[in-house]
């Protein structure tokens, strides 16, 4: 424990319940957070980073138990502290910022009162003083019109504003340690950039130490002074940000960093002169009174990939749903392989719909847990018009194609990890022999290393099968890796549309420029761009 460290974790282990895939969630981890710095703990899902943050808060999730080591904070060991003493510390000396800002605030209480509650719990301030302090805090996190925000309920303000409120709440009593667990993961990229900026402000000057948990190396580049990399509950590597990010010593860190998609698009060889597989003209669609699509026109040449990029509420998913007519357009035309898709009805529509298949975001929710993988794939094949025997042979081929072992045929989805499930979803989409595949945020739920594999797989499959792809994503970096063309959407409109290279390198529309600038991880990235190729 050095003189300026705020908290130091010494040989900390956290035991998982019996029957888990490993004995420890966190195993023998030693690190410390120092005054005025941001220590980023990075890792993929299941690496134990969130358990570590909970352990530092002295609040282990149900079923987990301390298995040795200490967490020293102000001379006390948090792992052995009584609940009453811990409670007195929480919110005052140690504060926390969470992943989902809207859900983290009580929906039934105005946000200002939730900030004031911290004073109510830990101080004897009078109501007027509490209100004044809360107001000042809201202002210090750059919330517009603090008086109005103070009286607003969480659902009445945006996610970014909610996160500022949560941060204001955390800073209320000037805690020595601030723990932020994926604080920007649930936010749009431009909002994320603003919140990261706020974190950077917090570091300078004040005496906080910040423990920042994230899975995103882009975010790490933006804020970290030091970086700790975790894997399977163990600390793989720790050191100053520049060292870990640019001269990683451990092989796992290198793989992780190489998997981070960059904004530099790799060279692509797709033939863009092919006739269009999908052509949508002047699509207009409403969601209730909201015009979700305003005259959207896109064309995808056969065998190429169009990435539609936008933040939440931009209409990108509505576009996908409208194209396969899960949502009916109010006007405009969709031509699939020259056939007017909007005019199809009943049986014809069902027939043609098979030519467009969709891969969804959540690999856990989109596969029926009661059916074996083989069953799922064969069913899709039979629906696509094959005989059972042919479908079976095709299902096995598909497993090879998405690089899953053939033994997967007889297993159920719960035997597979997220990345493997997404491969199964891809195989299922391909079982219908579609001409067009729509991938709606299909890699957003995956860890970066898995994400890179799935992106490579999709690219490979496109080369082999000549399928056309519509790729919906909020992440410009992912779009850069897979797209021939990029369409940027904002509030139901396509604001920029062109070759991926042009859109990323010479964005014309101010909004695209904002998006490109907001994509995290560019500050020190030069010379790294080709890593993901």
């Amino acid at each position, binding site marked *: 424990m050095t003189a300026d460290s705020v908290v130091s974790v010494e040989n900390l282990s956290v035991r998982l319940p019996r029957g888990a895939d490993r004995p420890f969630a966190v195993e023998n981890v030693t690190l410390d957070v120092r005054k005025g710095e941001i220590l980023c703990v990075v890792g993929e899902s299941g690496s134990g980073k969130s358990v570590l943050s909970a352990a530092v*808060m002295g*609040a282990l999730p149900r079923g987990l138990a301390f298995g040795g080591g200490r967490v020293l904070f102000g001379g006390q060991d948090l792992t052995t502290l009584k609940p009453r003493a811990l*409670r*007195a*510390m*929480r*919110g*005052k000396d140690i*504060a*926390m910022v*969470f992943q*989902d800002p809207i*859900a*983290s*605030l*009580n*929906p*039934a*209480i105005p946000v200002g009162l939730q900030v004031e*509650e*911290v004073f109510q*719990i*830990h101080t004897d301030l009078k109501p007027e003083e509490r209100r004044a302090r809360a107001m000042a805090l809201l202002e210090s996190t750059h919330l517009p019109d603090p008086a*109005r*925000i103070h*009286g*607003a*309920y969480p*659902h*009445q*303000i*945006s996610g*970014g*504003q909610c996160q500022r409120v*949560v941060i204001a*709440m955390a800073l209320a009593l000037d805690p020595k340690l601030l723990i932020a667990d994926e604080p920007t993961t649930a936010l749009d990229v431009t*909002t994320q950039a*603003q919140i990261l900026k706020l974190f950077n402000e917090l570091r300078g000057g004040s005496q906080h130490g910040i423990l920042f948990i994230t899975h995103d190396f882009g975010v790490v580049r933006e804020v970290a002074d030091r970086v700790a990399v975790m894997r399977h509950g163990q600390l793989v590597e720790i050191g100053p940000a520049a060292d870990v990010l640019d001269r990683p010593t451990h092989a796992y860190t290198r793989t992780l960093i190489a998997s981070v998609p960059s904004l530099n698009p790799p060279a692509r060889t797709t033939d863009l002169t092919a006739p269009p597989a999908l052509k949508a003209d002047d699509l207009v669609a409403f969601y209730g009174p909201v015009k979700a699509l305003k005259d959207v026109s896109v064309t995808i040449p056969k065998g190429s990939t169009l990435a539609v990029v936008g933040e939440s*509420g931009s209409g990108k998913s509505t576009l996908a749903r409208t194209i396969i007519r899960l949502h009916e357009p109010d006007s405009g035309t969709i031509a699939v392989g020259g056939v007017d898709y909007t005019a199809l009805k009943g049986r014809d529509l069902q027939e043609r719909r098979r030519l467009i298949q969709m891969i969804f975001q959540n690999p856990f929710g989109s596969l029926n847990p009661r059916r074996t993988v083989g069953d799922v794939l064969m069913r899709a094949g039979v629906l696509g018009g094959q005989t059972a025997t042919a479908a079976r042979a095709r299902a096995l081929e598909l497993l090879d194609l998405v690089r899953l072992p053939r033994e997967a045929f007889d297993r159920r989805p719960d035997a597979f990890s997220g990345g493997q499930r997404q491969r199964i979803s891809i195989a299922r989409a391909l079982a219908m022999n579609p001409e067009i595949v729509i991938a709606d945020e299909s890699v957003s739920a995956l860890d970066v290393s898995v994400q890179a594999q799935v992106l490579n797989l999709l690219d490979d499959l496109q080369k082999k099968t000549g399928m056309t792809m519509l790729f919906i994503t909020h992440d410009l970096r992912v779009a850069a890796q897979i797209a021939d063309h990029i369409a940027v959407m904002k509030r139901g409109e396509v604001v920029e549309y062109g070759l991926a290279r042009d859109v990323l390198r010479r964005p014309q529309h101010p909004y695209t420029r904002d998006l490109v600038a907001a994509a995290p991880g560019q500050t020190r990235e030069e010379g790294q761009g080709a890593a993901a190729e």
Partner: protein
Amino acid sequence: MLAAVLKKLAEVVGAMLVVSFIVFLVLEANVEDVAVKVLGAYSAPDQRAAWLEANGYLDPFLVRYVRWLWDFVTLDWGQSTLFRVPVTEILPQRLAMTGILAGVTLVVSTVLSLVLGILAGMNEGSITDRTVSFVSVLTTSIPEFATAVFLSAIFVFWLGWLPGASTMISGFTARELVLPVAVLTLYSAGYLARITRASMVEAMRSPYVRTALMKGASTSRIVLQHALRNALIAPVTVIMLHIPWLLSGVIVVEVFFAYKGFGTLLYEAALNSDVFLIEACAMVSVVVVVATQLISDGLYRLLNPRLRVSAKPAGATA
């Protein structure tokens, strides 16, 4: 805001009109039938014809409906053929008796089940939780008539502590109310306790409760200020659904304990084809159902700010 209230009121009035029409259609479409029921099976055909003529039953159906509806609104509910008195004389007093029974049951079962549900939900998986869950499944699974027999066997015949009939002939006594209330409470409290428990568990697992915990809030503050308010939304709906259920659900219990309430009245009216009394009972039930729905909507909005129609949303998207 005003538009929303007006819309709600229009819905309510519409629903009531539809039900009143159905009631009228079922009971008075066949005028011969009405005459037979009012004058008795041994009345002569010309007697019936004269009665129909005198009471305007030869007018077209819709005219009769509108007139009937108007009479209903102006509290002219006709004569009960069974009791030989105006319906308005007998119904309110019976309704009040059921009101007492239902009210006491509602209070007892709500308090009991909320307390049990909250205690169980606060600490998911604890002994309290498992006991409450088990007992509530058990009591909800046994129908009222079975519980009534069972409780009577113990408290009336074996221990002899309580009276077996609740006729209240010699005035109102709390002693006679105990068994009917106990039977109804056992049946309804289990369900409500389970709903409360489930919402409480959900609230205790929510991110905002974790936020409160990380603020250093005490357990009582977390439960009372953060979890409870949000956890009460579902139970309030169930409680409100209980009121109409109590009105009709009490029939079995009222008949079993010979309690002179709305349930027994409806039961007797139906047994004796007392047309006007049945009509009045049906319409009163509709009013009660609709009124409780309105109240429950209001409470819902009070508990859940997201449902309030706000004049000005506080924040634009950043």
